[in-house]
C-alpha cells in the first residue's frame, strides 16, 4: 500500500455533498444495496461541457471511498469527452482486479457516467430526474433506472 493510496484513505478527496450541483448520478450495486452518488457542477463553454466541481458520497466500503477519491480527483476539470474516456478506461481495467474491488470502482465510474448523462438530459428537460446505473458482473452499464 503506497503513500498515495494511504493519503486518499486518510483524507478522501471530494467527499461530501455539492450544495449547488447541476447534475447528479448514482452507481448502485443491486446485490447488496451499496451505492455511490456523484454531484457535478458543470459549465457549458460553447457547447463543451466541463466538470468545474465534483463531490461524491458512498454507502459502501473503504475501497469504494478510495476509488471515489481517486476517480473524482481525476475527473475534476475535464470536459465530458475526456471524463467519458476516464469512465471507459476504468471499466476496461476491471477484469484485472479482484471482483470486490472491481465492483467498487465500477460503482464510482457508473455514478460519474450517470451524472454526466443526467446533465445532458437536463439540457433538454431541466426537471429530468437523477439517473441510476446498476453495476453488473460483466462491468457493462445496464439500462437506465430513474430515481429508484
Amino acid at each position, binding site marked *: *500500500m503506497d*503513500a498515495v493510496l*494511504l493519503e486518499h*484513505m*486518510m*483524507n*478522501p478527496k471530494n*467527499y*461530501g*455533498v455539492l450544495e449547488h450541483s447541476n447534475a447528479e448520478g448514482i452507481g448502485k450495486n443491486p446485490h447488496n444495496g451499496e451505492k455511490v452518488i456523484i454531484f457535478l457542477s458543470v459549465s457549458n463553454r460553447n457547447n463543451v461541457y466541463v466538470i468545474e466541481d465534483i463531490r461524491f*458520497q*458512498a*454507502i459502501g*466500503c*473503504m475501497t469504494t*471511498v478510495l476509488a471515489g477519491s481517486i476517480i473524482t480527483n481525476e475527473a475534476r476539470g475535464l470536459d465530458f469527452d475526456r471524463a467519458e474516456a476516464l469512465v471507459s478506461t476504468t471499466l476496461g481495467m476491471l477484469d484485472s482486479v479482484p471482483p470486490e474491488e472491481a465492483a467498487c470502482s465500477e460503482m464510482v465510474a457508473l455514478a460519474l457516467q450517470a451524472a454526466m448523462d443526467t446533465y445532458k438530459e437536463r439540457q433538454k428537460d431541466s426537471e429530468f430526474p437523477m439517473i441510476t446505473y446498476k453495476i453488473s458482473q460483466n462491468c457493462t452499464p445496464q439500462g437506465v433506472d430513474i430515481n429508484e
Partner: protein
Amino acid sequence: MNRLLVQVHEVWLETLMSAFMSNNTATKQTLFDFSEIMFRHFTWIENYCIKNGVSYDYERNMIPLKVDNLDAILHDIIARLNRVELQLVVCDDEALSFRISQDIEYFIYTLKNIPSEPVSAFDMQRTINGIELTEEATDALTLFLFEESYKEYELIMIYNYLKAHSKDIELVRIFQILIDESFFHLKRFGQMMADMGILGVPRTIAKELYVVEDIVEFLKNGINEELLAKEECKRLSDAVSNESKELAKFFDFVNYQENYHIALMKEALEFYNKAADVQ
C-alpha cells in the same frame, strides 16, 4: 439550530481526533474528556430539535486534521468553539445555551494552556508499539482500521439517532450500551491509527443510514455484520499472533465483545417483533 448542531458535531470529532495525536497522558485525557462533553452537547441540541420540531441532520464538512504540532489543531478547535459560542444566539433554551457557553469558556481557557508537542499521527510509518508486522498483515490491519473506525462512528450515529427517537426505557438502555461500546472501539482503533501514522476522520454518514426505515431489517443486518466482524477479528488475531501476542489478544478481546452486542441486538429485535405482533 441545525447549523449549531453541525458545528458542535465538527468540533466534537476534531477534539476526539486531537486526543489521539497527543503522547502526553494528561493532555490526551483532557481532550478525551472535552470531546465527551461536546458529544453530550450534541445530543442535547438534538433533543432540543426533536422537542421543538426543528429539522436537523448529521451532515458536516470534511475536517482537515493534518498538522505537525499539536498547537495548530488546538488553535483550530478554539476557533471552532468561538464560532459555536456565536451561533448559540439561535438557541432559545437559555439553560442549555448558558451551560454550553460556560463549558466553552472553560474549554478555551484550558486549551490555551496545553503545551504543544510534535505530532506523528500522520507520518504513515505503519508500525505499532515498535512491532514489525509483515507487509500483508500491515495492509490488512490498515484496511481494518479504516473500515472499522468508520463503522464505529456510523454505529454511534445510528444508535444515537435511534435512542433520541425511542421512548421505551429498555430500548434506550440497549442503544446507550451500544453507543458506549462503539465509543470504546472508536477510541482504541483511532489510537492505533494515530500510532501507525495513518489517522483520519471517519467520513460522513448518509442520511438514509441513520434514519432507519426498517429497524427489524437493520438489526438483522447488524447481527450479521457483527458475526462478520468477529471472523475478521479472528483472522487478524491469527495474522499478527506470531509478531505480537498483545495485538492478537486485543483482537480476540474485540471478537468476544461482539457476542454481547449480538445479544443486545437480538433483545432489541425481540422488542420490535413483539411490537409488530401487537399491531
